[in-house]
């Protein structure tokens, strides 16, 4: 019997706002415990919630980026349950009227090789809604300590349909959401800081079946590779259990990334009765066409769309675009440089960025923002190489200095004497004529239309020039001479 896995993911994304979701004390991470609280955060007697406008803008943007329907009206509900990290012992969330409905996440699975684009799939979403985050519990040996700094931070919950079938798809899904949220300036999605969290709902069924099997919720998947590993482990566990003749129980399991095992947290018998009801302290939200179009105007082109465009518009190879598009600032930097250097130079620009710039940034522990290299630098260097003013090896040396100092490439070339020796055109002409004279066969082939035959003539010339001839000039000179034969 062959089984297939059916996987749905619930992803929580912390929004990048100045203040919290329902009160204006600052939001933040890494602060001294309990320094980001106020009466509302702590649920003191008499405190009341007030919505954060920017959080609404952010979720509308997320919804538009992911192709969701933005609900014309939505409201807030109380989800009642008791827990030490939840000050009010209810969480303000959205139950039956979420702000975003439907939507889709485009994912890319790994290709057969690194330079080959893998299969693309579209994973449908069920909904996206807004809620507030809870505090942080620090567990000790005999007691626990609670820090409420995180409590009340705006949290977006993205719920997918149970439409994924492998750990690989789940991994790709999470990567895609992460990239989209970073692109949109909605969240930094740093999983280590808890800005992106993921729970998985996993079940199995015989291949070809349409019903859903017993669902297991897997929690504590707190890195993107734990998500993949945990899901893979759970699928195997479920299949093994069923093949042994056992039955699966609907439960919540906690994944331990260090040991690669999971254990049951509680069976669904103890399922919470959340007693949802509309929050009487908050007014509903109406999103009109004008609000939507304002946000739409701020929406960036998504990574996959950009990648497709780069391939088509700039004739870039897939592998090059893969490096460029996943960092929006890098992609923007690239396009700036291409604007200055000319579209025909796009690949050269791309190569400089992907090979040399990233290497220099990493070595110096810098980011694009803190580096001295600007798009104009790249464009200038490309132009120099193109004109034959500097040769490729020298250009590489210039790049390193350019990254360190921020000086213009030509200035560096002069300073370090890296300009190609000015070509003695007479000498070059002589070498070309000599080569033509010595390679009649190649010349004949060239004249019949075989353009690549010219390469056979270049070798002897480069040899004679001891590698220092400008390839472009050599090519031009040869063609001119061959043209007049």
């Amino acid at each position, binding site marked *: 019997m062959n089984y297939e896995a059916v996987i749905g993911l619930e992803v929580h994304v912390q929004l990048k706002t100045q203040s919290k979701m329902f009160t204006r004390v600052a939001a933040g991470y890494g602060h001294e415990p*309990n320094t980001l609280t*106020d009466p509302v955060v702590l649920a003191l007697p008499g405190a009341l919630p007030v*919505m954060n406008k920017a959080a609404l803008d952010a979720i509308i943007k997320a919804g538009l980026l992911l192709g969701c329907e933005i609900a014309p009206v939505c409201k807030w509900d109380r989800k009642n349950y008791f827990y030490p990290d939840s000050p009010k012992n209810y969480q303000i969330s959205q139950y039956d009227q979420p702000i975003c409905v439907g939507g889709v996440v485009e994912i890319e699975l790994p290709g057969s090789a690194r330079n080959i684009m893998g299969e693309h799939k579209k994973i449908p979403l069920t909904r996206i809604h807004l809620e507030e985050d809870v505090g942080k519990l620090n567990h000790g040996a005999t007691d626990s300590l609670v820090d409420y700094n995180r409590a009340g931070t705006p949290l977006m919950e993205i719920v997918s349909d149970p439409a994924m079938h492998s750990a690989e798809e789940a991994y790709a899904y999470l990567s895609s959401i992460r990239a989209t949220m970073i692109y949109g300036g909605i969240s930094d999605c740093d999983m280590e800081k808890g800005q992106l969290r993921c729970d998985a709902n996993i079940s199995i069924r015989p291949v070809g079946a349409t019903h859903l099997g017993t669902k297991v919720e897997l929690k504590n998947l707190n890195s993107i590779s734990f998500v993949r590993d945990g899901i893979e482990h759970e699928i195997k566990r479920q299949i093994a259990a069923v093949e042994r003749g056992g039955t699966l129980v609907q439960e919540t399991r906690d994944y331990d990334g260090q040991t690669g095992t999971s254990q049951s947290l509680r069976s669904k018998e103890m399922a919470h009765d959340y007693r949802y009801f509309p929050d009487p302290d908050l007014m509903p939200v109406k999103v009109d066409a004008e609000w939507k179009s304002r946000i739409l105007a701020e929406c960036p082109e998504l990574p996959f769309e950009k990648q497709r465009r780069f391939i088509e518009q700039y004739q870039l190879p897939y592998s090059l675009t893969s490096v460029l598009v996943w960092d929006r600032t890098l992609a923007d930097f690239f396009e700036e440089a291409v604007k200055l250097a000319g579209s025909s130079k796009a690949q050269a620009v791309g190569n400089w960025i992907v090979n040399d710039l990233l290497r220099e940034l990493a070595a110096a522990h810098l980011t694009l923002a803190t580096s001295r290299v600007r798009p104009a630098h790249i464009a200038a260097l490309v132009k120099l190489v193109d004109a034959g003013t500097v040769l490729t090896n020298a250009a590489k040396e210039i790049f390193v200095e350019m990254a360190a100092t921020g000086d213009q490439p030509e200035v560096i070339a002069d300073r370090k004497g890296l300009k190609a020796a000015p070509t003695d055109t007479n000498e070059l002409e002589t070498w070309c004529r000599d080569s033509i004279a010595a390679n009649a066969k190649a010349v004949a082939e060239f004249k019949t239309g075989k353009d690549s035959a010219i390469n056979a003539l270049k070798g002897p010339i480069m040899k004679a020039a001891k590698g220092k001839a400008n390839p472009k000039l050599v090519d031009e000179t040869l063609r001119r001479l061959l043209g007049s034969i």
Partner: protein
Amino acid sequence: MSTAPQLDIDHIAKLARLALTPDEKVKFAQQLGDVLHHIEQLAKVDVSGVEPTAHASPVFNVWQADVAQPGLSVAEALRNAPAQRDNMILVPKVVE
């Protein structure tokens, strides 16, 4: 006096995190049974086509701009704390 058949006082007390004594369970079940019996008459009202009142006069989009304001100092935040350590609220160990 009747006890509403649906009021499982053990279950509800658990949901509400209220430890009731056996005496309280009996007494409350009876008193609330009387109240629920009275409340049953709401079932007689014809509410077809009636919208629930979420708010007396509904208004939409009541919010504040995302500008951070000062909050409580740690001392103020923990002033009424029954137990604390290292500027955090102390609770008995939470077992998942």
